[in-house]
């Protein structure tokens, strides 16, 4: 790894813009990712996450704006950017008819990694990812989770300082997903910077910073705590025999900001001044004897649902 003093910017983008025909995929976007961060790009399909990552990875030229990776332009200094990044595309992009070991060998050699480094890194990466016994298997015969791990291993072979991961866990089983994030956490501890796109809100909690993208713009960004703090009030879960009737009753109560069904529970966002548990039991008590109320932690799903409802129509949200 090249030395990069902590606090300097790994990615700095200003006014990035990209259209595909009439569709504006990324609109006038600014992004700052500090060195050492695990930066999560969240958002629904079509939000512009892939387009943004591909522009930073130098594979897609922006229509307007500029982006720098470790101070080098992604358009004019591609040769200085590519050796320091590892880009993992959303689709599986290894040679299906080459084996795991051959794919690693090929992409590392192309990037100028010496033989000794290649061998030792391939060995340790395959071992740490549980792929060692599949080294001679053709990539097309790997399972979905193993394919993702092979791609991650391949992007790590030249020991890049910045990892650009485009939905690495989409379509991967929950066990592999957890394992994948365990690997990302260890990369974070090594001091590498990670920009990771994901449609899964629960993965946001594992990031040091997150940005929520929607229709080509960043709507919210900051640390998970900062973003959670933007949601006023407290979250409560109400269990009852008839959740739908409870939901209708809850919404009418003073102090309730919003409420929605969450499985058999009614989730209530309380912004009132009084103690919410007492107030809710008092307000609903007459209708159902089996009613229980308990406080819940605010999760990212709730945060983004709240922020999406309450954000001004198209204004870019305040950054961190």
């Amino acid at each position, binding site marked *: 790894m090249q030395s990069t003093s902590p606090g300097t910017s790994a990615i700095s983008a200003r006014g990035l813009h990209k259209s595909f025909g009439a569709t504006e995929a990324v609109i006038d976007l600014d992004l700052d990712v500090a060195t050492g961060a695990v930066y999560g790009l969240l958002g629904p399909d079509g939000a512009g996450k892939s387009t943004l990552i591909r522009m930073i*990875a130098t594979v897609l030229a922006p229509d307007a704006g500029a982006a720098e990776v470790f101070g080098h332009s992604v358009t004019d200094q591609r040769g200085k950017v590519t050796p320091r990044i590892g880009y993992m*595309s959303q689709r*599986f*992009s290894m040679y299906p*008819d*080459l084996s795991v070991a051959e794919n690693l060998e090929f992409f590392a*050699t192309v990037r100028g990694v010496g033989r000794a480094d290649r061998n030792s890194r391939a060995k340790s990466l395959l071992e740490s990812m549980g792929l060692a016994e599949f080294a001679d298997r053709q990539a097309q015969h790997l399972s979905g989770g193993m394919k993702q791990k092979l791609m991650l291993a391949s992007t790590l072979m030249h020991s890049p300082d910045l990892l650009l991961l485009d939905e690495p866990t989409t379509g991967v089983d929950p066990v592999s997903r957890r394992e994948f994030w365990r690997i990302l956490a260890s990369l974070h501890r090594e001091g590498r910077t990670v920009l990771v796109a994901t449609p899964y809100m629960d993965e946001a909690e594992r990031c040091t910073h997150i940005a929520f993208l929607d229709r080509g713009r960043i709507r919210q960004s900051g640390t998970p705590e900062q973003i959670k703090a933007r949601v006023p009030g407290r979250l409560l879960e109400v269990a009852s025999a008839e959740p739908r009737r409870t939901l209708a009753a809850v919404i009418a109560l003073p102090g309730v900001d919003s409420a929605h069904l969450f499985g058999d529970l009614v989730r209530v966002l309380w912004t009132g001044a009084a103690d919410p548990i007492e107030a809710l039991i008092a307000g609903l008590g007459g209708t159902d004897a089996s009613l229980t109320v308990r406080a819940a932690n605010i999760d990212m799903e709730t945060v983004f649902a709240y922020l999406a409802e309450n954000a001004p129509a198209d204004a870019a949200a305040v950054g961190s």
Partner: protein
Amino acid sequence: MSGKRIRLLIWKEFTQLKRDPMLVRLLLLMPVIQLIMFGYVVAADIRHLSTAVVDLDHSVASRALTDQFASSGYFTINARPTSEDDLRPLLDRGQIQVAVVIPAGTQDHLDRGETAQIGIIVDGSDSQVSAVGSGYASQIISRYNRQLMTDAGISVAAPGVDAQIRVMFNPTLDPINTMIPGLIAAIMMISLMAIMSQAVVKERESGTLEQMFVTPIRASEYLIGKLTPYAGLATLQMLIVAAVGILWFRVPFNGQLGVVLVGLALFMLTCIGLGLLVSLVSHTRQQAQQAMMFIMLPTMVLSGFIFPIASMPPLIQPLTNLIPLTFALEVLRGAFVKGTGFAALAPQLLALAAFAAVIFTASIIATRRRIAE
């Protein structure tokens, strides 16, 4: 340009080729099978036309004439109906293609020194059969006439024009001698373009092309790395196919080996380049296949492979110069059959070189543009 990266790309292509035995078979075995199969098709000269003879005269003259037809090799007498009315059903069922009717009294007419009328009926539904059949029939009859006159002691050396036709270069008029060189070029073109057109688009579909662009590989390195293994295989293919053409079909090789090899090598580069270009600009494999069809059909029709360019409408003729196969055919036919040398074939060889240069420049530009995209 880094030789190390190019070597690596070549290693990768060969490793992949080894795992795709179908592709190697397609490149090396298919052309041989096709050449042998199509070789016999194009070599099928019109001979042994199924013929019926209606001999109503039953004379020495009628038997002599029938023998002339039978021994010519062009007509095989399969039916001897007793009346002209029986011919129609035979023709309708396709059992005969030609009928000879020798009316009663033919011998008498000849004996009296008069001209006898012989009927020749030809099935016109196949224009080639009817043209060739009637041509051969009139030849046989005129030969018979000459023989009659000689027998009668009449001098044939009467004043008049006697055409002495001598076919140069291909004295047996065997179509195989011109068709095999053409087939070699056409088969090479089809198999190379079919495979090359998939080469890059396959990587685009599998996402490895995008991954390649995050590495220091340059457009020119990528192209050379992609091309070299296939050019090697194509050379092997070219030698095998040419050898089969010469050894199996005994196509006389009158020319210089150098001319044929240079011509084929330039044509091979053109085909590889064209396939590569199709592959570069296509987004999916299907697109590449469709683009191939758009290129192959006019190539086959307009190159002179099937129809002679000289007999095409004047407006169409200039178009044939846009087709690389046109020049490859001229080089191969010239070199194989006529033994034409470098000097006489220079324009065609230069044209092929120009095609290769233009196509490869376009490929490099297309690759660069893909990077920017």
